[in-house]
């Protein structure tokens, strides 16, 4: 007879509801979206097959390129700066603050810097929209109160300051995520390694180099997840600037949304979202390769 549990048969029914729903909610819409991207369609009536024309149009569209350029710039605010600051801060809290002021103090700071992360992105946008408001916002009011009224401006409404303002908000919002991940990563480092560095009298910079090397797996995870997150940014842009002024803060996600729901260019919107998907999948594959190579090197 044999054990019923040693066989892998008989479990398929448990997968059935999950797979059916997955097919309905993810596979079918994804395939449909891909199909729509090859048509000209305004959302009603019959889509007209136009092959790859939407993709050709995207490559010749200045707004499309602006959205990706803004996205690349936003990666600085979402990925690069928070990763560097987060790692530095985590190392400082772990190596300097925790041993001298207690791990409670380190946890306190970690929790405090993490707090913005718990807000829904749209609410974070509302909070900052209020602070930066040119009529009654705290920032301009304070600048005027201390005699720096010349610096006051419509931060989100001025093409020169809109994107930098969004970037600043994103750094504020994102710092907590790498901080939490790096602090837990440092806890798994063998204390003897750091003690050895201490005995050798390694400089602060050298010690930081050692730490950065030891948490490379977490750095990879943070860089991948936040880069993908940057490519999907929508809520903040919707609430803060609606992609404006002009197209100063347009991002692919918002551009796709505009084409779907405001301009009724559904085929074009589908093509943009398909291109976003391709970039994200390429990034994920590249990341898995780097990670695998990294693991092989560590195993040697």
């Amino acid at each position, binding site marked *: 007879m044999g*054990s*019923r549990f*040693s066989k*892998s048969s008989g*479990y398929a029914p*448990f*997968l059935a509801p999950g*797979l059916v*729903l*997955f097919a309905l*909610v993810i596979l079918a819409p994804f395939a*449909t*979206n891909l199909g729509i991207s090859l048509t000209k369609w305004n959302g009603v009536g019959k889509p007209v097959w136009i092959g790859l024309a939407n993709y050709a149009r995207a490559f010749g569209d200045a707004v499309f390129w602006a959205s990706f350029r803004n996205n690349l710039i936003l990666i600085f605010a979402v990925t690069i700066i928070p990763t560097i600051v987060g790692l530095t801060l985590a190392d400082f809290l772990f190596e300097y*603050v925790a041993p001298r*002021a207690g791990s409670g103090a380190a946890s306190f*700071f970690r*929790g*405090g*810097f993490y*707090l*913005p992360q*718990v*807000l*829904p*992105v*749209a*609410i974070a946008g*509302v*909070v900052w929209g*209020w*602070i930066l408001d040119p009529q*009654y*916002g*705290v920032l301009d*009011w*304070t600048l005027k109160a201390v005699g720096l009224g010349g610096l006051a401006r419509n931060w989100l409404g001025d093409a020169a300051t809109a994107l930098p303002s969004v970037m600043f908000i994103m750094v504020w919002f994102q*710092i907590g995520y790498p901080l*939490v*991940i790096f602090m*837990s*990563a440092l806890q798994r480092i063998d204390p003897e390694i750091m003690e050895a560095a*201490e005995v050798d009298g390694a400089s602060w910079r050298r010690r930081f180099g050692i730490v950065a090397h030891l948490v490379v797996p*977490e750095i990879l*995870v*943070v860089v991948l997840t936040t880069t993908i997150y940057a490519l*999907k940014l*929508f*809520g903040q842009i919707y*609430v803060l600037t609606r992609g404006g002024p002009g197209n100063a803060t347009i991002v*692919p*996600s918002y551009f*796709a*949304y505009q084409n*779907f729901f405001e301009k009724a260019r559904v085929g074009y919107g*589908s093509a*943009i*979202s398909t291109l*976003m998907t391709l970039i*994200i*999948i390429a990034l994920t594959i590249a990341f898995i390769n780097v990670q695998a190579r990294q693991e092989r090197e560590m195993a040697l």
Partner: protein
Amino acid sequence: MGRATSRGSRIGLYISLAVLSIVLLLSLLPFGVVALNAFKTPADYAAFGPLSLPRHPTLSIVVDFWKRVDFGTKLWNSFYISACVALFGVALSLLNAYALGIGRVRGRTAFLILFVVANTLPQESLAYPLYYFAKALGIYDRQISIIIIFSVIQSAFGTYLMSSVFSAFPREILEASMVDGCNKGQALVRIVAPVAMPTLLVLFTFFFIWTWNEFFLPLIMLISDARQTVPIAISVTQGQHNMDATAASASALLGMLPCVLFFFAFQRTLTRGVAAGSVK
């Protein structure tokens, strides 16, 4: 090392703690400023600006805004949708992972890859067909649409996580249950689910909060005022009305408050969960 607590290094510690505290305070300033001005009258704000303490602290602005957007309904909508998604999402993850992690059904690697890829897909690439299908099925602008969609999206992550947890599940326990005459369904309910309960609760907490914070699809799917969630209602109101400073700050406060409460209630689960998710 023991000698390191000299006076010089202690002063260094105090200075760095002070600097760190100032930076933290600046980072938390938006929370403080919002809270401060939600309790002022517009006249108070106009006279003394955003950084003074309220002269005549009042709840009236918050209460007015609450009534204007019918905030109680919005809270209930968010709670109801998030709780349903967390429940169904966890149930789906459990079923999928039972088949993939413990059952090791044929093609499990391919299925797992499918779930992982689904996890990174941008919602933009699903949004228009979902919107169109929901309209065709008559569930557009109804909360059931968002509940179904997010239960499946969240379960893509949950399946992946629970499958890797279950691949290390002690099989002797299952063998023993079989001797007692359990079938596979009973084994799932009586043995696997209780053993996995701590992880399932963490998953539940995360699904709840993630769904609460969602913006893109709820914005598209729930257009009736009475069906909207907290983040949608607050941000839409922000755009529609020409609000004065204190009302804007009351709205931001009401949007922030539930999430800050979640944070203090589940701080350990959240920070540990975020870290655990980074290294599988």
